C-alpha cells in the first residue's frame, strides 16, 4: 500500500516535471505576445519562448520534445499574428539545430552560453525572415528582425535565471534514473 502511494506520488511528480517546461514556454510566449509595449513601440517584442526551449533542450531534452516545441511555435503564431506557421517552423528548425549540436551548446558557460543562445535566436530569426520573404515574394526590411534578435539575447540572462529557478524548484534536481 505504502509502496503504491509512493509510486503514485512519484508518477504525479514526473508528470508535473514533464509539463512544467512546456507550460513555462507557453507563459513566456504569452508574456512576450501581449500587445503591450514599455518602449512606446520602439523596440519589438522579444522571442521569450525560445529561452525555455533552448534551456530545457540542453538540460532535459526529454522534457522539451519536438512536439512540445511545435505547440509552442503554434501558440506564438496564433498570438503574434503575421503569416501563419512562420514561428512554428522557425522554432522547430532552431530546436533541430540545438538538438543536433547539443553537446557543443551544453559545454558553453558564461558569455559563451549567451552566444550559444544568440546562435539559436539567429537561426530562428533567419528562418523566419526567409520564410516571410518567400511568403510575400519580396524581402522585408531586416532592421526589425535584427532589433528583435538583440532584445531577445539581452533578455536571455534574466530569462535563463528565472527558468533555472523554476527548474530547480519544480522540475527538481536531475534524477539518477535518466
Amino acid at each position: 500500500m505504502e509502496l503504491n502511494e509512493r509510486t503514485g506520488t512519484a508518477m504525479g511528480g514526473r508528470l508535473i516535471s514533464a509539463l512544467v517546461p512546456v507550460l513555462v514556454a507557453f507563459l513566456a510566449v504569452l508574456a512576450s505576445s501581449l500587445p503591450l509595449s514599455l518602449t512606446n513601440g520602439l523596440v519589438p517584442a522579444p522571442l521569450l519562448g525560445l529561452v525555455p526551449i533552448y534551456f530545457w533542450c540542453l538540460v532535459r531534452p526529454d522534457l522539451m520534445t519536438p512536439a512540445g516545441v511545435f505547440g509552442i511555435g503554434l501558440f506564438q503564431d496564433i498570438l503574434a499574428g503575421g503569416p501563419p506557421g512562420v514561428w512554428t517552423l522557425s522554432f522547430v528548425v532552431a530546436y533541430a539545430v540545438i538538438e543536433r549540436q547539443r553537446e557543443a551548446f551544453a559545454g558553453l558557460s558564461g558569455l559563451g552560453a549567451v552566444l550559444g543562445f544568440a546562435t539559436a535566436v539567429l537561426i530562428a530569426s533567419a528562418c523566419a525572415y526567409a520564410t516571410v520573404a518567400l511568403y510575400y515574394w519580396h524581402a522585408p526590411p531586416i532592421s526589425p528582425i535584427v532589433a528583435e534578435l538583440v532584445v531577445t539575447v539581452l533578455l536571455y540572462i534574466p530569462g535563463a535565471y528565472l527558468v533555472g529557478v523554476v527548474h530547480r524548484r519544480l522540475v527538481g534536481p536531475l534524477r539518477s534514473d535518466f
Partner: protein
Amino acid sequence: MANGTWKIARRGNTQLPLVIVLALAVALVLLGKAQSNLFDRARTAIIDKMQPLLVVVQAPISEFDRFLGSVDELFAVYHQNLLLKDENARLRQWRNVAVVMQDRVKRYQSLLHAVPDPDIRSVLSQVIGRANRPFLQTMILDAGAGNNVKPGEAVVDARGMIGRIYLTGQRTSWVILLTDLNSRIPVAVAPGNHQAIMVGDNTATPTLDTLSQTVTLHAGDQVVSSGDGGLLPPGLPVGTVVEQAGQYRVALLADAASAQDVEILAFRRPPEELPANARSQLPAVAAGLKPAAPVPAAPATLPAAPTSTGAAPTHALPSPVPGAAPSVQPKPALTRAAPTHALPSPVSGAAPGAPTKTAHSAQPNGAATVTVPLQAQPPAFGTVAPQPQAAPDTNQTPAGQADQDR
C-alpha cells in the same frame, strides 16, 4: 544555463519525431499561405477574453510611456514653446483662410448641384494594445463586431489616418497600420491629384507605388486617401511626400505609437445599380443586326443529339468597343435549334459610337445615379444637368488586396 552545475541529460531518441514535426511545420506554412486567416478566429477569441486584462494593464503602461516621453521634452520645453507660439499664430491665419474657403466650396457645390458628401458613421474607440513585431505592426482597439465595426474600415486619429481594421472579434478589433508590410491603400497626391498606391514596408515612411513615371512630386505635397474602391472615404489626410534615396515616400501625419483614442470610420459607397436591359439595348441591335428570336424551350422528350451534330448554345459575345459588330456572330444550328444567348454590352444603353459616362445628379430627395449618353442628350443651358463623375470605382479594394497579400 549549462554552467557546469547541472548534469547533462542523455540524448533522447527523438530523430524520427523531429523529422515528422519539421514536415508538419512546413505543411503549416503552406496551409497558411493557402488560407491566410487560419488562426484569426483563435486569435480574436483569445484577445476578446483578455480584453478586460488589457484595459487594466494598458493604463499604467501608457502612463509610464508618457512619463518617459516627457523626460526628454523637459529639456526642450522653452524652445518648443517658442516654436508652438509661432506655429499657433500661423495656424490662426490659415484657419481664417480655411473658413472662407469652406464657405466658398459650399456655395460652389450648391451652384453645381454636386453630390453631397456621404454621411460617415464613426465609432470612437480606445487603443488597448500595440504589437510591434518584425512582420506585423498592429494595434488593438476595444471595439469590435458588437459595435458594428467591420474589417476594412478606416481608423483615424485627430491628425490623420492610422490604418484599417483587418480583424474583428466581438469586443476587440485589430488594426493593420499604414506602415505594415500588408498595408496597401489608394491615395491621391495633391497638387495634381496624382493617383498612387501607398505600400507599407515596416518602416516609418511607406512608399508610393504604381505612380506614373511622368509624374514629379515634391517634398511636402499632401497625400490623402483617394477613395478608389469605395471602402475608404476620399480626402482623409494621410501624410506628406518625402524623397528618400530617389524614392517617393510618405511621412505620416498620425502617430500610431502615441494615439490613445481613435475613430473607426464606417464608409461604404453604395454600389451603382446597372439599368435594366431593354431589347433595343442589345449589342446586336446596336450593331444594326437582327436580334436572335427567343426559342421556346425544347420538349423534355427530345432525345439528346450526338455531340458531333448537336448544336451547342451559341453566345453572341459583345465587342469591347461600343458600336462595333459583335466578334462572334450567331451561327445557325446544324440539326436543331438551340438556345441563343445574347450577352449585354458592357456599356449598356449606348448608341453606336456614343461614349457614355456614369453620372450622378443631385436631386432634392437625395443623390440619384443615372446613366446617360453624353452626346445624345446635351444639357440645355440653364437646366440642371447631371454632373459626370470621371473616376469610377475600381474593384481593387484595400481589404481584398490585403487579404490576397496576407
